[in-house]
């Protein structure tokens, strides 16, 4: 059963979040042949700042775990930052670094201040086929215990990214998640679409 169809996950998300969807890559239809594709989930503040993300498909327990962690840590950061946006961002990044170490045994130092490299004006950017810049390539905090770490899962890579960039706007982050972590070519800036799951018959019934 897919995670978002799980009633408990649905109940939890509907209680704490308002959900929406966008398309970030072109759709290819070739008869009934299998096509590539992927999904990324972003948990954001209402102003678009990313609190947490999940790169790629996950099962229901993992989704639930990440949702609960996001809610708990956001509350904690709100309480401890006392309305200071920079402190809020720094706390989020620290929490991601802690989670990366606790769950995956990977040690990084959170980057608490934004770097100038994050701008789309810089040379490094994910581009469309015409060379237009879509999203910046974001530098990752280096892994300090490389010798002890085997291969990072997509979830671990996302926490590594967010240990440096949590609190950034979704339009700055999506390239690093979709192309940087999932290796899916980002072919467009996020655009509106009628349904997130066009291959599902029941998904199109509104």
């Amino acid at each position: 059963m897919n995670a978002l169809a799980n009633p408990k996950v649905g109940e939890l998300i509907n209680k704490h979040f308002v959900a929406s969807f966008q398309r970030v890559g072109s759709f290819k239809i070739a008869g009934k042949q299998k096509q590539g594709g992927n999904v990324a989930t972003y948990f954001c503040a209402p102003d678009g700042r990313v609190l947490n993300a999940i790169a790629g498909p996950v099962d229901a327990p993992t989704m639930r775990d990440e949702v609960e962690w996001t809610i708990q840590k956001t509350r904690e950061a709100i309480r401890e930052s006392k309305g200071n946006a920079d402190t809020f961002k720094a706390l989020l990044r620290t929490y991601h670094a802690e989670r990366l170490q606790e769950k995956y045994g990977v040690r990084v130092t959170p980057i608490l201040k934004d770097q100038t490299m994050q701008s789309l004006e810089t040379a490094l950017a994910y581009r469309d086929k015409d060379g237009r810049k879509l999203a910046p390539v974001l530098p990752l905090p280096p892994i300090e215990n490389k010798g002890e770490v085997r291969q990072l899962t997509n979830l671990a890579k996302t926490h590594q990214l967010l240990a440096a960039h949590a609190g950034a706007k979704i339009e700055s982050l999506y390239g690093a998640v979709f192309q940087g972590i999932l290796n899916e070519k980002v072919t467009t800036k996020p655009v509106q679409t009628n349904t997130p799951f066009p291959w599902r018959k029941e998904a199109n019934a509104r």
Partner: protein
Amino acid sequence: MSSKFVTVPFCLILAAALWADELDLKTIEKTPTACHGTAVEFVDTPVEAAQLAKKEKKLVLVLHVSGYFEDPDFT
């Protein structure tokens, strides 16, 4: 004595205004949502989601999708 003449109409006006507000609240349209085969209610755009989240003091979940999936039960 004169304060009575001021207080009573004021209270009546206040009560009428509150009652009118209550009616307005009841007539606010609920944003249409669709589940698209999941247990999650989706609004149409992230902008709508952000506005609604701010109003309801919730967070926003944005799903980014691309292409087709080998397994339709992908997430």
